[in-house]
């Protein structure tokens, strides 16, 4: 499987996915008008990765902003991670939020209550 490296733009996040280390990173802003188009390669990659995942998959989500259109796609990404966990692989989602950003913390907690993958909420302190 290939390594994925999507460079961020003002409306879309930087995404890196490494099949060997099992580290996935989504970082920046996710506010595109058409988020399905943006997330399709990410979801497809995870779909393929789930058939032969690394022993441990660590997903770092560090978003400054995301729109509601992205929120559905992010859920799709997390649902793929749930599948990976089902094949007895270790999966953890690190959800980063900036100090005092209660909206972003709450958004992480919403996902945590829906998705059966362990979440770690990490506050970024300046």
């Amino acid at each position, binding site marked *: 499987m290939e390594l994925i490296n999507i460079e961020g733009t*003002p409306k879309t996040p930087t995404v890196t996915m490494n099949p060997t280390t099992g580290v996935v990173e989504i970082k920046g802003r996710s*506010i595109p008008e058409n988020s399905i188009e943006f997330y399709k390669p990410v979801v497809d990659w995870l779909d393929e990765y789930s058939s032969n995942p690394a022993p441990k998959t660590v997903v770092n989500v560090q978003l400054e902003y995301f729109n509601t*259109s992205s929120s559905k796609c992010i859920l799709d990404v997390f649902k793929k991670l749930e599948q990976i966990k089902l094949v007895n692989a270790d999966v953890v989602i690190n959800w980063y939020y*900036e100090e005092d950003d209660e909206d972003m913390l709450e958004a992480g907690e*919403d996902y945590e209550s829906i998705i059966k993958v362990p979440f770690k909420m990490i506050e970024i302190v300046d």
Partner: protein
Amino acid sequence: MSLFLNECYTQMNQGEVIVAYKGCINADIISNTLNLIESKLDESVPNTPIRKKLYNVLVESLQNLFHHVDIPPDLDTECESNFGVFILSKVDNSFRIATGNFIKNSKAPILKEKIDKINSLSKEELKDFYKFVLNNQTFSEKGGGGLGLIDIARKTGNKLDYTFYDYSPEYSFFNMNVLINE
């Protein structure tokens, strides 16, 4: 036509205006507007959580104008895509986001029902409703997820104030105002 719009625009125009826009709405215009507002907010809103909340609600409001708009055929506009009105202003200790767009009258009752439902829910109920729609509803053909208004209500903690102005037997002008408390 323009007299009608000017009247709606005047109704929406309250407080100390930061940015006002009336015209075509497309992805580039949304990007430019967000960039402009962001640089203004960096200077004028030192409180980061409030600035982020405001920015988030702006994104949803502008993208609502992108995803859910109808254009009356007799509207005198050169827009290839959507037509909308957007005003960000400061009213007392709040920021006020007013948006306006035309909508087919046939769709108005569903929108009204949705907003009334959102306005009737408590903070906890809104959270549950958001999670339910997130987890159960598929995207509309235009790419909207049906979450925008719920998210706006949740983030602002305020009711969604709205008016439908009669335009023609088939179309209305829908105006929505939300407040973000500073």
